[in-house]
């Protein structure tokens, strides 16, 4: 009798484990990585170190980052022939560029970044998933590794505002 009870208990335990594994997990925030369009707005001749350093502190495991050229983005935003600063772009002007990106899910956030450590300046334009825009610029400021990491944190902060996967 005791042996039969043990077998039944073991079978019940196995069934519980199978049931738990088979039950679909309810969707939760964070189930899908953030889809980000990143555009390097620095001139071609500018060094890439600053952008790389900033993006090192961006949580890449939780985001899929797509890239697009700055000239293409300016053109799609309707500023191919003018010299309007990208910091003055409106949120909806990036819609055309976002539609062209091939990503696993629709683009949630857009980051335009001009990071030039050699000129001690950084400019960043971030469109959050709720379409609010954050504009950040640093001038005449030493951009070292720590400051670049600081910028990456700011990009991440703004890129996740209103993200509901």
């Amino acid at each position, binding site marked *: 009798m005791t042996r039969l009870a043990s077998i039944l208990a073991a079978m019940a335990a196995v069934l519980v484990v199978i049931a738990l594994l088979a039950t679909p997990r309810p969707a939760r925030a964070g189930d899908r990585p953030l889809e980000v369009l990143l555009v390097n707005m620095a001139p071609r001749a500018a060094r890439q170190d600053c952008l790389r350093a900033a993006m090192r502190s961006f949580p890449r495991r939780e985001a899929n980052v797509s890239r697009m050229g700055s000239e293409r983005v300016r053109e799609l935003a309707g500023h191919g022939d003018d010299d309007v600063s990208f910091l003055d772009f409106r949120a909806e002007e990036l819609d055309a560029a976002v539609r062209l990106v091939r990503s696993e899910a629709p683009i949630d956030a857009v980051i335009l970044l001009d990071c030039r450590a050699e000129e001690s300046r950084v400019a960043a334009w971030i469109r959050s998933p*709720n379409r609010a825009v*954050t*504009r950040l610029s640093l*001038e005449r*400021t030493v951009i070292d590794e720590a*400051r670049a990491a*600081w910028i990456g944190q*700011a990009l991440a902060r*703004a890129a996740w*505002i209103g993200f509901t996967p």
Partner: protein
Amino acid sequence: MPKGRALPHATHLLLAVALAQSGCSGASEGASEPGAGAGPALAAPAPAAQDEPVEAEDVAATPAPADLSTHEVALVVVHDDPLLRSEQRLVDVIVARMAMRRIDAAARDADAEEASFARAFFAGAGDASAGLPASLRGPGVVLFLRFAPQRELSSGDRATRGFAGALAFREGEATPFLSLRVDDEAGWRGPDEQLWPWLISLVRAEAAS
């Protein structure tokens, strides 16, 4: 940049901790309600997003004007509506957190000239030719903080929409070395949302340089 100031008194530090903690609890007040009165010079309002419950707030008592000229960091607050208690508390938290980082800071509301000067820069059209208003030409960093226009609840009460931007000027400079302009819906609000440690670390580095 003056250095070597006296450390904050122990009671000041205790007050700083208490303020910081009270600020954390108030940080989630207010919600990003899209389409409700974006600032005059910022981008268009965003479409519908998540709503959070908000509570009506009391208007804070107007703080006594502070002399900012002798401090390492002069915090000048720009706002469209009378500050709510949570907004005043947020300013207090920033000053307190700076004190905890041994930054000698003081805050007060912008006067008309200062507000006009800062609003132009927040609109992306600042005029550097005239330089900082004379009232702010002290030896330290000048940090303008702007609150977004408040939202009006159906009850007629007002609720904060949080922080909407920052400008930081070094001594003797007429253009900001830091400019942060945030759409009203972006919701960079409380001390737990990375902004204040982030901003303070920059100011700390500047004050130490």
